[in-house]
């Protein structure tokens, strides 16, 4: 355990990329309590403060059950927080909207629609004619590498293909923000790496704001500008780490990069830390 490796790169509350105006996503004092069956309450999220700048890629990293999904659902407007406030470009979140596109861990594709129908859905909702929507959807399907599968129903696709359709469906309606909940969690290592590269390419092109939930340390370091590490019971942000790796990033170069390695080791140690008994 060398000195250099154990020295933390960044402390709590590492600043967002400096920018003028309100943050793209602002979370201030967000808490969430669930009613338990026995009548008691369960504090799932405890005063979460986190700002995400426009065009920033932020990952939320933490052990299972620490409230990552719940936090994402709150930002999406699907679930109301018990306390605190969430803003998007300064406006308070009151419900779901096409400015924030979710990609769920469970894919959640419409089984009664084809790949094309799924991807075109949001465009049709946005008022595009069927022709225009399908043309645009076709482009996106090609971009995620699924050309030729337009007429397939989701049940006939593999997990990785389904996830790419889900991503294309969300990208289609052009949200400013992507909310991704362990999108690659259920995939094999090979597909996972392929999709990570694709996502990074897409992101480097459009520079959307991304809030990305994962429990894989290497994935978080590879993709993110900053990583928020959460602890469990109650769900809190323990540390925010800035990932100072140059872009565009290439996996094979990064794996040999000492800074990358150090980030991975640091974050792994942070997650492994026994629960903070003092709190």
């Amino acid at each position, binding site marked *: 355990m060398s000195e250099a490796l154990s020295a933390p790169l960044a402390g709590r509350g590492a600043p967002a990329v400096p920018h003028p105006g309100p943050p793209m996503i602002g979370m201030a004092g967000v808490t969430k309590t669930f009613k338990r069956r026995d009548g008691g309450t369960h504090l799932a999220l405890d005063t979460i403060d986190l700002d995400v700048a426009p065009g920033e890629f932020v990952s939320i990293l933490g052990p299972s059950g620490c409230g990552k999904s719940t936090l994402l659902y709150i930002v999406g407007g699907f679930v109301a927080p018990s306390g605190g406030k969430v803003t998007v470009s300064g406006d308070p979140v009151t419900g779901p909207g096409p400015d924030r596109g979710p990609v769920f861990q469970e894919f*959640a594709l419409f089984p009664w629609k084809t790949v094309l129908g799924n991807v075109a859905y949001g465009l049709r*909702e946005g008022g595009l004619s069927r022709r225009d929507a399908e043309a645009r959807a076709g482009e996106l399907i090609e971009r995620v590498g699924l050309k030729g599968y337009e007429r397939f129903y989701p049940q006939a696709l593999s997990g990785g293909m389904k996830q790419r359709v889900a991503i294309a469906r969300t990208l289609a309606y052009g949200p400013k923000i992507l909310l991704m909940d362990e999108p690659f969690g259920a995939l094999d290592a090979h597909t996972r790496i392929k999709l990570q590269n694709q996502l990074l390419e897409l992101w480097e092109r459009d520079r959307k704001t991304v809030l990305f939930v994962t429990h894989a340390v290497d994935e978080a370091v590879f993709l993110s500008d900053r990583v928020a590490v959460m602890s469990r019971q109650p769900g809190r942000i323990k540390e925010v780490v800035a990932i100072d790796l140059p872009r565009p990033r290439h996996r094979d170069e990064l794996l040999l990069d000492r800074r990358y390695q150090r980030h991975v080791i640091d974050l792994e140690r942070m997650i492994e830390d026994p629960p903070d008994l003092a709190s």
Partner: protein
Amino acid sequence: MRAVAGSLHGLVGLAPIAGLVLAWQVLLTAGWVPSALLPSPGAVLARTVASLGDPAFLGHLASTLYRLAAGFAIALAIVFALGLAGATSRIADAALRPVIRVLAPIPKIALYPALILSLGFDDAPKIILVAADALFPILLATYGGAGAVEQKLLWSARAAGTSRAGTILKVVLPATLPSILTGSRIALVVACIVVFLAEMITSTDGLGYLLVRSGRAFQTVDMFVPLLAISAVGLALDGALAAARRVLLRGFPEEE
């Protein structure tokens, strides 16, 4: 190869039916059952074929089909209305559920005497009875299906810009369609059964009436014809439903 195996499987299914007919014939030829009580399968088949060219028989068949169709259509309309009410309004949902829970297990045929008393002996009480009996299997399946719609499908649609009311038509309905069709399938069988029984109890036409009339005249051959006919009607309608299912539910796993 597949196709051959498939048709072989289809043929295998004829064996028990053929066996049953054979046993039936053996009972008669051996003289264990007097032919006054049980006609021969050949006689039944001949009479059935003959009936198909008989306008009077076709009229009875048409009456039964009309009652079946009208009752089923009413049931579907009610399902649609109640489903929509339950999906759009919490209060309607909370009020409807217990009422349905109470009414569903009542054997509707017991209401038939009351329907006759209020509506007379015409088509109306039979159609209402069919509707009442077909309604609940579809309704229960619909409620079950709508309650089990994956929440993330709704969230995905909401995030894509669909309004809350819009998700009823665009997500809840298509996601519930498999359940609706499964419920319809059960309802169809029950509907065939009760329309026939209602016609047996009071009627001057229809397949059920034919059975009773033949029974009174001790014409056992004629008693089998309406039974075969209702079975064929049920099979045909079930086949139509299965075909509709294949077209409507292309994205869902097969049931059969």
